[in-house]
């Protein structure tokens, strides 16, 4: 059964990769040969395909969790599978659901090609640049932390000035951090269930390996910082904690928790790591819920709290909410995919789809506890 599951999963990932190419932006001249316009001309069919693929993704997710609980899969097999996922999805089209990766390329080009400060000069000020044809947030100065901008230099230079190589170098960098995070979760939990819950989670997989969001980099550094604290290496932990903040700022909210752990360690008092992960998850969940204050809730922001939630296996409610949120946030793309507009009913529908399922889960647990 396991072998068939792996083969089917591999085929499914390939299909998903092929499907991602129906979303190619018509202005993306570098992939003109692959442009079909299908996602824009037959929106209903594209949406049905997408929703079905997400559901299948979750079925596989359930199967892998089952295999993990039944101890029918070992760590080596898990990491071989993760390697397979990373390799197949590496070739997927990254701007299927979000255009952020183009923004990463544009921002790094402002710094490393034009030698301008991306916190001062916006990509759209370089009016002749072909990136402007398809970069969606070109009218904004750099949105990310300085460490991310420096780190983005690696894929930028690996691209040797070729847009497609640069684009896929970004995906490669993100894939490394994905595998690194999965490995850290194993090191921190010494249990394959959190590894499976996190690294096979469809939202994590799609937003990280397909869309190439840098949230995983921020999470890698924060987890690495906590891991170093478990080894009592406070100075290095502080360093990696700061690096995490300098990727995307959101982890700054974990400063009180971090300071509390350091205080406990200095006082040579024990640290209840399950509690630390639980509260970290809650804080990052609050950060996620408060993100509309800045702009809006984006699906990939769930990566902020999901890894912590999956490190606390005894908090069933947190686990359930995280998994259901993963599904609802992937379905959040449907209203726009279907209508092609961000206005009208789309924002309302997006909120309904995103929040009704987790609220129902909370209501279920609430009723269960009353009974």
């Amino acid at each position, binding site marked *: 059964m396991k072998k068939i599951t792996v083969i089917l999963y591999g085929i499914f990932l390939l299909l998903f990769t092929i499907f991602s190419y129906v979303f190619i932006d018509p202005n993306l001249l570098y992939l003109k040969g692959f442009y079909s316009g299908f996602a824009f001309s037959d929106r209903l069919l594209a949406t049905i395909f997408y929703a079905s693929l997400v559901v299948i993704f979750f079925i596989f997710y359930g199967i892998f969790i089952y295999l993990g609980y039944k101890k029918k899969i070992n760590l080596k097999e898990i990491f071989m599978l993760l390697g397979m996922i990373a390799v197949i999805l590496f070739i997927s089209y990254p701007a299927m659901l979000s255009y952020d990766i183009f923004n990463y390329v544009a921002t790094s080009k402002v710094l490393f090609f*034009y*030698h*301008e*400060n991306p*916190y*001062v*000069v916006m990509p759209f000020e370089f009016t002749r640049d072909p990136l402007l044809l398809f970069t969606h947030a070109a009218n904004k100065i750099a949105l990310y932390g300085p460490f991310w901008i420096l780190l983005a230099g690696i894929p930028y230079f690996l691209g040797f000035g070729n847009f497609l190589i640069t684009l896929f170098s970004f995906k490669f960098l993100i894939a490394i951090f994905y595998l690194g995070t999965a490995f850290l979760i194993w090191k921190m939990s010494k249990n394959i269930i959190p590894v499976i819950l996190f690294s096979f989670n469809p939202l994590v997989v799609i937003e990280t390996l397909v869309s190439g969001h840098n949230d995983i980099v921020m999470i890698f550094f924060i987890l690495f910082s906590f891991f170093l604290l478990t080894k009592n290496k406070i100075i290095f932990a502080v360093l990696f904690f700061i690096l995490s903040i300098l990727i995307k700022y959101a982890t700054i909210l974990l400063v009180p928790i971090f300071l509390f752990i350091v205080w406990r360690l200095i006082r040579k008092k024990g640290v209840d790591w399950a509690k630390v992960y639980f509260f970290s998850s809650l804080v990052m969940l609050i950060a996620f819920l408060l993100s509309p204050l800045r702009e809006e809730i984006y699906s990939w922001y769930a990566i902020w709290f999901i890894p912590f939630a999956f490190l606390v296996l005894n908090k069933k409610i947190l686990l359930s909410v995280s998994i259901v949120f993963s599904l609802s946030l992937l379905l959040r793309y449907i209203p726009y995919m279907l209508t092609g507009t961000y206005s009208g009913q789309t924002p309302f529908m997006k909120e309904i789809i995103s929040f009704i399922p987790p609220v129902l889960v909370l209501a279920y647990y609430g009723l269960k506890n009353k009974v």
Partner: protein
Amino acid sequence: MKNEKFVCLLILVFFFFFSSKSAFAESSYVLPYPSSMPGSFAYKFHLVYENISKYWHFGSFGQFEYNLKIADKYLVEAKTLFEYKQYLLAYKALKKSDFYFINILPQLIKANKEEKDIIQKRNILTYAVEKHIEVLEKIEGETPNAFVWRPEKALPTTLYLQKEIVNSVLLRKKSL
């Protein structure tokens, strides 16, 4: 007392709306509000920030933006000080504005050599020049020709204010 406060507030609100409308009537380019003035506590911090900010705005476009921003700031400072007849300080502020303004065009030339498209920046500079000249001509009409500055324990110095303002206008016209 309460009514008086309300009336004052109302007048302030009306003043704000009407004054802002007339300020933007002639040129679409928007100058900043006056920030802290020489002698105030915050002014020194502004000077430090200004110096650090110079390194933050690296690159030809960054330097273009920096020099234009600071030239604008000192022009507004000069205008405010001229209005309050603080001629020495106003004279110095205008000199500073000129100093930063001179640096703008070379940055555009540099950007052009780096094959960056400078059309938008060129337009911004044109609008800025028009606005600067508009402000300078207004100041010129309200300022005495010369002013004798008598510092303590030193010889008096004559500041040729109108001449300086005319120089500033010419300097800006050159970049058109």
